[in-house]
């Protein structure tokens, strides 16, 4: 609901579209006013719908049906000219589609034994440097990194030790891709584990446990020296880690906030301002936050090692749009404040957040 102060950002609901299938992910097509909805139809098949924003309504441009329900998608690893969509489905298949000719995928691999819960891409869209890569996290407990130029085998595989009982991986994110060699993958699991894998050294760089299943992780920017990481979890909590200073035993400094009683399903940083991010909740609400850096980002501890200092988070606005969880959220990389969100009430909503320039 609108705050009384006229200077606070407002979340304006621009368009609503009711769908006849369960919506799992929604993404803007880069460099356009078009968006994609990915989901699962009632008869158990996958649905990809392409919409275009026309004034106050969404016009359906294309509908594509696939044999398996689709859980997640990303444009992160494709070039701006090609704009191929990478999807993960309920069967563990990773596919890359050319939406102009979607009958046969450009790349396909049965990457996992169970549903791919989360997918991220890096190295595409003219952002950052290095090879385009896609990471998928699955219920089978593994996290795999794929290069679209290499068929069938992943270029990195993070799997449980032999004999270890597996935990579902719920979310993955790329980060630290500031040059051709450096890259990290952050993975969040259902038992609260967060693990940071360094792909340059192929090793585990950091791990921690936030005591509740991790629903979503995201770096504030993929293509810079890793700056901040936000991890959201069940029971209404999220943590912001300052990733600039890693202490040998204490890891990264963090600040946490309990925003609401229900699960925080997604966090997405504003592409145009890396200190503003939106979280979406199981109660159908969206919260817009701003991170403020502390006076000193690092300090020395009693033994002289550097440790980070976490800042603070303040709530800019919140709004309740639905009674069902808002499970997916995406900011438009081209228009500041334009975002799309999908909820389990089978509705996709296009929102505009105003006054972001004044922050």
């Amino acid at each position, binding site marked *: 609901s609108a705050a009384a102060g006229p200077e606070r950002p407002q979340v304006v609901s621009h368009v609503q579209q009711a769908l006849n299938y369960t919506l799992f992910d929604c993404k803007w097509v880069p460099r356009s006013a078009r968006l994609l909805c990915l989901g699962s139809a009632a008869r158990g098949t996958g649905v990809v719908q392409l919409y275009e924003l026309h004034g106050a309504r969404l016009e359906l441009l294309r509908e594509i049906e696939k044999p398996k329900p689709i859980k997640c998608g990303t444009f992160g690893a494709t070039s701006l000219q090609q704009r191929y969509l990478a999807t993960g489905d309920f069967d563990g298949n990773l596919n890359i589609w050319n939406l102009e000719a979607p009958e046969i995928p450009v790349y396909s691999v049965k990457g996992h034994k169970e549903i791919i819960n989360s997918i991220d891409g890096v190295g595409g869209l003219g952002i950052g440097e290095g090879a385009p890569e896609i990471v998928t996290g699955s219920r089978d407990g593994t996290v795999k990194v794929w290069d679209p*130029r290499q068929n069938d085998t992943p270029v990195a595989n*993070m799997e449980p030790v032999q004999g*270890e009982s597996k935990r579902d991986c719920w979310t993955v994110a790329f980060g630290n891709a500031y040059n*051709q060699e450096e890259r990290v993958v952050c993975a969040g699991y259902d038992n609260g584990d967060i693990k940071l894998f360094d792909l340059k050294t192929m090793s585990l760089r950091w791990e921690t446990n936030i005591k509740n299943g991790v629903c979503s992780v995201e770096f504030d920017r993929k293509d810079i020296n890793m700056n901040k990481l936000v991890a959201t979890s069940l029971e209404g909590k999220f943590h912001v880690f300052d990733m600039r200073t890693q202490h040998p035993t204490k890891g990264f400094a963090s600040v946490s906030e309990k925003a609401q009683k229900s699960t925080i399903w997604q966090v997405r940083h504003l592409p145009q301002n890396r200190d503003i991010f939106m979280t979406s909740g199981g109660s159908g609400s969206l919260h817009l936050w701003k991170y403020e850096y502390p006076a000193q980002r690092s300090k020395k501890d009693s033994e002289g090692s550097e440790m980070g200092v976490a800042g603070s988070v303040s709530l800019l606005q919140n709004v309740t749009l639905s009674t069902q969880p808002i499970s997916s959220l995406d900011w438009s990389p*081209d228009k500041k404040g334009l975002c799309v969100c999908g909820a389990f009430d089978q509705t996709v909503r296009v929102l505009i957040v105003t006054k972001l320039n004044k922050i």
Partner: protein
Amino acid sequence: MPVWLREHSWRQTLTAVYLSLPLRGARATPANIFCSEQYLKVSIPPFLFEAILYAPIDDTSSTAKIGNGNIFFTLYKKEPAMWDSLTLADAGKEKLQYLRENAVVKAQEKAKEETEAKKITKQEHKKYALEATMKLEEAERKRIKDLKEKERQKVAKELEFWKNQQKDADKYKSVQKKEELHQEIKPLKERTNEKMNKSRIPNEGTSKIRLKSTRGCHGSCSIFSQNLKEEQLPAPRAAATIKVNFTPRVFPTALRESRVAEEEEWLHKQAEARRRINSDLSGLEDLKEEEKNPDWLKDKGNKMFAMGNYLGAVNVYNLAVRLNNKLPLLYLNRAACHLKLRNLHKAIEDSSKALELLTPPVPDNENARVKAHVRRGTAFCQLELYTEGLQDYEAALKIDPKNKNIEKDAEKIRHLIQETMQSS
């Protein structure tokens, strides 16, 4: 008997009567004065003044002023006329009575009417106030709604504008690229022919160019830019695996912060329940606290077994059993020790006791039961009781059919049995 106040004085004009009544020291309040159209009474116990007025007055506008030990009445006549006297002279007792009652009744009615009127006005006031607040709130809501709507429209317009900008930019870019294309086509053609043989993606790119109608020239020129970028991209990473360990946890469910307190409590209770079931045994007083904990002792025993100190391990297990004879694992491990020490009968005893305690047979204690069967089977075989041994091995195989070692050993025993049967 009331004391009558009779020393009143009065004067009159055409329209009004002025009556002055001294009070003889008594204190008067408005409650003591009772006045109706033709009857006036002042009652301040024990004093009493009563008057049947000559002619009716307008009792609503008439006033009484109390002060200086005196009440000064200003009575406005209903009909302007000069009165012969203040009171009716020939007032009989019945008339007096009647007038009195009448006056009282009339006064009561008036009072009622007044309260009714008051109520009605009050209600009307409330209604008015409510309507006014509602109007105010409505206005406020409308204002906010209008603000929001204006914002939305502004934003929608900006969006349309941006969209059109995008379209124009795309068109402009495609026109530019077309020109560049025409210029660069010849030298690049040779280069691309080379590259097509090397990498896969440009081939796919060409076949899809025809289909990309909406993107204008992007398709045809992408092949060239892609080739150039291909050169700059590093090769795919060398494949590697990173092994992952998860945070250890006693419970099979995932960790949830809200349940941590419950879980701790449960674990604590379990630990308490296992300690000192038989703690009233003598000779235990000089043991340290941790030495009375069967779990701790089991761990100690396991360590000793691992180091090869089988006698020591047996002693530790003995103590643990004294403290809590219901833990199957203690017997199981002690059986292993006895096997190593070649105390075969004791090994059989302990394995049997362990199996007894491992009822009911559930998937949870599968591992333990397999071990128990294997150990007992081994002990039997070493005593040359091969049939009994085979029975145990087969039981173990039944629980864990995939275990190759058990299979091999079972085969061996079968052979041995056949041999002994043949030779006897």
